[in-house]
């Protein structure tokens, strides 16, 4: 018994923040360079009352145009922007989506590696016989942690949510995983001033602020991802040349192009498309998978490598057969 991705839907919030909008607020900003090198023109930003959970529920509702919700027997929700510290957002999602009550639900807190971990969890739940039809949600609103004056992070991150149905399958469509963790990098991508550690002083006092040490994150990525790709190919008994398509976390165009050339991948088989979304954290891989499928770039039988990496540090990769 194996597991497969049956369907993906995603939701993007209505409000679009364009490079022109950012220039209007920061005339000194070089938007052409950002569009050319970072590969981002627009990003969608959640409304002030709209949360990652709201968006994930909308993505799931789109999925339920094609899938019977009564089949769902487990909800996994990847987010770092939960509605509340407690209760668990996945429990609220179960109720808002009208799912059965005799099912499991849990949140997990990961960023750009989150979708890979979600697939690993879903596959494990299926192969161990705990569940058969898993609703894997991702939802992120980093915009709520970024102040208006932080042009670097505002230009990179976008908000989004996705819903994936992972189901039991006769074949092993979701392959073997390679996962990694190095908490030494925790300080380099962090929202420090909210949470139990700081006694919640941020609430009503100081704006919760996302801090990213770009150069260190870049160093981590260029040191960690090339061997990750080698390892996951080896584990799945595939040569790099046998991959039909590669979807790396869409962090930014510059990093992806650097990784493609360092790893020695065929650029024509690698996904680079964040022009209209920005870096949507745990959502980039499912959005890329859905777009690639809808555009006919990937087709049944293809071997597609997926790799996520970032905040934690946390990273993971698998190869799926479409």
């Amino acid at each position: 018994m194996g597991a497969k991705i049956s369907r993906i839907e995603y939701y993007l919030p209505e409000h679009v923040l364009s490079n022109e909008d950012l220039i209007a607020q920061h005339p000194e900003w070089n938007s052409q360079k950002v569009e050319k090198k970072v590969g981002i023109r627009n990003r969608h930003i959640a409304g002030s009352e709209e949360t990652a959970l709201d968006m994930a529920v909308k993505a799931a509702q789109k999925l339920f145009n094609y899938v019977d919700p009564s089949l769902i027997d487990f909800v996994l929700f990847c987010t770092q922007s939960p509605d509340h510290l407690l209760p668990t957002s996945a429990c609220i999602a179960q109720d808002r989506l009208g799912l059965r009550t005799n099912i499991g639900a849990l949140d997990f807190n990961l960023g750009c590696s989150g979708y890979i971990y979600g697939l690993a969890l879903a596959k494990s739940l299926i192969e161990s016989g705990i569940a058969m039809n898993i609703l894997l949600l991702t939802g992120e609103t980093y915009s709520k942690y970024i102040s208006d004056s932080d042009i670097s992070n505002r230009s990179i991150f976008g908000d989004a949510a996705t819903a994936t149905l992972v189901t039991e399958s006769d074949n092993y469509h979701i392959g073997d995983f390679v996962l990694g963790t190095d908490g030494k990098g925790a300080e380099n991508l962090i929202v420090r001033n909210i949470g139990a550690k700081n006694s919640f002083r941020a609430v009503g006092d100081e704006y919760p602020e996302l801090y990213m040490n770009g150069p260190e994150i870049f160093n981590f990525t260029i040191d960690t991802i090339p061997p990750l790709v080698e390892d996951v190919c080896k584990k799945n008994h595939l040569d790099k040349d046998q991959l039909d398509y590669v979807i790396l976390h869409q962090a930014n165009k510059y990093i992806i192009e650097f990784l493609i050339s360092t790893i020695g991948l065929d650029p024509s088989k690698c996904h680079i498309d964040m022009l209209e979304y920005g870096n949507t954290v745990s959502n980039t891989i499912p959005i890329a998978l859905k777009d690639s499928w809808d555009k006919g770039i990937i087709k049944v039988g293809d071997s597609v490598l997926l790799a996520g990496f970032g905040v934690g540090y946390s990273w993971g990769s698998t190869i799926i057969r479409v």
Partner: protein
Amino acid sequence: MDKFIDILADALEMEITDIKANDKFREYEEWDSLAVLSVIAMIKQNYGITIPRKEFDSLLTVEDLYNYISANKG
């Protein structure tokens, strides 16, 4: 050093003649957060060295960069 300046100019999208050993590279008009990544990537690609952020921040001139690479390349 000439070869290094050549590669650095390419990374920063500058003319070779505009780069001198004593220049404080952070004062270049072209210097921004993307330029940092370009220089880090250039050094990794050409010399196989990952420069930790703290050490990178302590390097001020083009010559400092060159000396760091010379001392650390395998």
